[in-house]
């Protein structure tokens, strides 16, 4: 089942999350590069370049998700970005490297006195949730699309803002969960 409200709302929310995440990484590119090399997957020479490519891809996905007609491409790119991040996450969780900065907390992880976020399986779950938001943009409309009404504007706006807010709430909850674990 697909509906224009779901389509626009989910794409806009995913786009917001990606763009805000990319912005946060661009603001402190050195920290993000350090986080990438702390994952210890790529050779040290490549990780800096990879960090730049990753942020560019994240930004491109965010922008594409907002452009009419390009949403499906944006959603696919977003899925790819998420898959790469989650693969790195799962790989390090599987080999027990938990105490590294995940480089993915968004603004929540940079709050006053916030320490390095650390990895947990909850992050994988969070990324899985984000991936779900890409689905409406990927699935083709069955039959003809419903015409949008004025009430839909409110629904799209509400869905987008609550989804983004829920994402950041989840980040805060995760951060405090990890802090509590270390208390």
């Amino acid at each position, binding site marked *: 089942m697909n509906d224009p*409200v*779901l389509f626009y709302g989910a794409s806009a929310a995913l786009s917001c999350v990606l763009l805000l995440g990319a912005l946060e990484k661009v603001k402190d590119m050195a920290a993000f590069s350090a986080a990438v090399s702390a994952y210890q997957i790529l050779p040290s020479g490549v990780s800096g370049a990879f960090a730049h490519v990753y942020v560019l891809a994240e930004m491109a996905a965010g922008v594409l998700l907002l452009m009419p007609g390009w949403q499906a491409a944006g959603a696919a790119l977003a899925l790819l970005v998420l898959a790469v991040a989650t693969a790195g996450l799962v790989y390090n969780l599987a080999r027990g490297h938990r105490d590294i900065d995940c480089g993915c907390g968004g603004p929540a992880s940079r709050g006053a006195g916030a320490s390095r976020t650390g990895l947990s399986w909850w992050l994988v779950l969070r990324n899985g949730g984000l991936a779900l938001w890409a689905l409406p943009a990927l699935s083709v409309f069955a039959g003809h699309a419903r015409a949008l009404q004025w*009430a*839909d504007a409110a*629904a799209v706006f*509400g869905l987008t803002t*609550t989804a983004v807010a*829920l994402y950041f709430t989840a980040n805060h*909850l995760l951060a405090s*969960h990890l802090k509590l674990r270390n208390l």
Partner: protein
Amino acid sequence: MDALIISNFLLWGVVLCLVLVILALSRQIGVLYERVAPMGALTMDKGPAVGDAAPRFELPDLLGRRITIGERGQHSQLLFFLSPTCPVCKKLLPILKSVASTESAWLRIVLASDGEMPEHLAFYKQAGLERFPYLLSTELGMKFQISKLPYAVLMDETGTLRAKGLINSREQLESLFTAKELGVASVQDFLAGNMDETRVSRKESSNALAG
């Protein structure tokens, strides 16, 4: 119509997510409370025990007034041992002043120390402690067996020792008042679930309230 149905479904989805968030939050608060349990003033197992009658003293303070300690009276007495050379004591002085005004209905604070008079008098004036009587007596500290500063001893209206401990913060100072109110020897005791003693002292404290 479709728009409303979709909007309704989405709203339910959002409500469910919010409920999950609230659940996670309340769980975190619970864990936080467990991990950050209150830490009361550290009580040294020396000197007169909590529940005993406090040793009685009648001493002149720095300004020459006669001050009685451990007497039956209208107010509880907090005997606060300090020294001009102890930095934590200085940090606690503003807290003492604020506690003196908020608890003035039932509490009188008396400062105590020992050593040379001129040094203490200068400290007394400089720190603006004129509202508190300030006793200089080695014997007082010996009787209560004070080995670490700042140390506070709380005595109730009947001259019975109700709580005592090493004080490093407002929280620890207030833990003495809480211990008196709850009728336990110390907050640590209360947390350890020392129920028998609690019951006995509760009875005592209700008697004290009635009297």
